[in-house]
């Protein structure tokens, strides 16, 4: 049991290092870009909206409000996008039977998770340093929110990876289906102030709940009226289970 666990850890850490090399290239600049792009994208939006004279929908800082929404959504998107193609990307590694499907999923997810910890940490620290935001009011809740976004993105990505390995066209369908998330996840507005009829519909979107959870953790008194923690946790766990069970059941078809 212990031997199996140490093999698993060894294999996953070797894969993480390999993924880092394959994703970001040989130069350190490659990794720097991975951090700069989401942060700069968020900053650009903030500048555009400030120039248009828009007031922050909540709190005093437009940058903080958008960042809590946009970076959370991007974290989810990045996880689900990268995991979806993980099996075809690692096809050559079937040569080494020590490596199994879940290892590929875990390794890639760990790398993206660590990258986004860094991105968010740097972005929020910069806001605090520039006096554009205060420190998070409920750090533990913020960490829970990050964890659940990770779990949801992992489950969604793993499930999609299994579907894509059976039905290749699914990758395009998935891109279409997730396109509206930018409007449906409360990135630019406070979902709690929507009319209740709209709120009921939008509350089906689990990514909205992760954004709300992040804001509940960051702001002192965000008090989301939409956030349903048991819904998003339950759904995330279901997707993780579906993805991992599906991977096991379809494994012999993939090689």
């Amino acid at each position, binding site marked *: 049991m212990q031997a199996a666990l140490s*093999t698993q850890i*060894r*294999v996953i*850490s*070797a*894969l993480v*290092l*390999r993924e880092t*090399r*394959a994703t970001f290239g040989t130069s350190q600049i490659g990794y720097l870009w991975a951090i700069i792009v989401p942060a700069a994208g968020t900053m650009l939006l903030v500048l555009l909206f400030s120039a248009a004279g828009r007031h922050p929908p909540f709190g005093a800082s437009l940058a903080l409000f958008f960042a809590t929404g946009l970076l959370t959504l991007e974290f989810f998107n990045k996880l689900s996008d990268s995991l979806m193609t993980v099996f075809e990307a690692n096809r*050559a*590694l*079937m*040569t*080494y*039977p*020590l*490596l199994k499907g879940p290892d590929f999923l875990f390794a890639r997810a760990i790398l993206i998770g660590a990258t986004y910890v860094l991105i968010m940490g740097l972005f929020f620290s910069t806001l605090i340093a520039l006096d554009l935001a205060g420190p998070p009011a409920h750090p533990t809740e913020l960490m829970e929110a990050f964890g659940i976004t990770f779990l949801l993105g992992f489950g969604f990505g793993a499930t999609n990876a299994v579907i894509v390995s059976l039905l290749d066209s699914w990758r395009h369908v998935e891109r279409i289906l997730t396109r509206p998330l930018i409007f449906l996840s409360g990135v630019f507005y406070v979902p709690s102030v929507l009319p209740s009829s709209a709120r009921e519909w939008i509350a089906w979107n689990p990514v909205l709940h992760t954004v709300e959870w992040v804001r509940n953790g960051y702001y002192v008194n965000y008090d989301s009226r939409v956030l349903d923690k048991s819904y998003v946790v339950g759904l995330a766990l279901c997707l993780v289970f579906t993805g991992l069970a599906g991977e096991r059941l379809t*494994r*012999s078809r993939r*090689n």
Partner: protein
Amino acid sequence: MIDLIDVSKSYTAKGVKKQVIDRLTFSFPRDRNVAILGPNGAGKSTLMRLIAGTELPDEGRVLRHGRVSWPLGFAGGFNGSMTGVENIRFVARIYGQDTGSVIDYVREFSELGKSLALPVKTYSNGMKARLAFGLSMAIDFDCYLIDEITAVGDENFRRKSKSVFSEKLPHARICMISHAMNQIREYCHCGLLLSSEGAWYFDDVNDLIRAYESSNKARQAAPPAPASS
């Protein structure tokens, strides 16, 4: 060392299903080197890939006790955009071996020199095979799988490969596919004979070779089956 339990494998190509291995149960004897013989298409390489774990059976289980190599010299597991050293480092890591000493060993053995710092996609087939062979020798496997020893490199490299391989023999088992009976006699003690009718085990390699040769003669003597059937 390796147990096959009720293993089946079939492939479907253009809607036609071909059962390659049908409910095979076999335990590879510990401390003996095993040959796998049979005519083309009998499923020798499929069986080897199932043993290696690079393919999974449709049904049944393959149990490996100890470390089993990938089919020797097989270079398909390299990432072309990564350098030789990076590929070596990765394989050394997953098998839990000291990366520095594995790199030194492969550098010395493969004679690739400065090419090791270049992406593997720039290598010739011979260079890739030398890298793959050197790497499989650098890692301590309990069982080496050999699907047709193909000559890699020049006369000097071949001699070196053979002597390194002989050093492994006292500690490691071999499972070998070959059409060269002198190699089978040299390395193997016993073996499996595969055919479309099934698999037979021979405890003595000379009996195995005799059975293989007489089955070959029988097939040559039989008139070719009509194409329409």
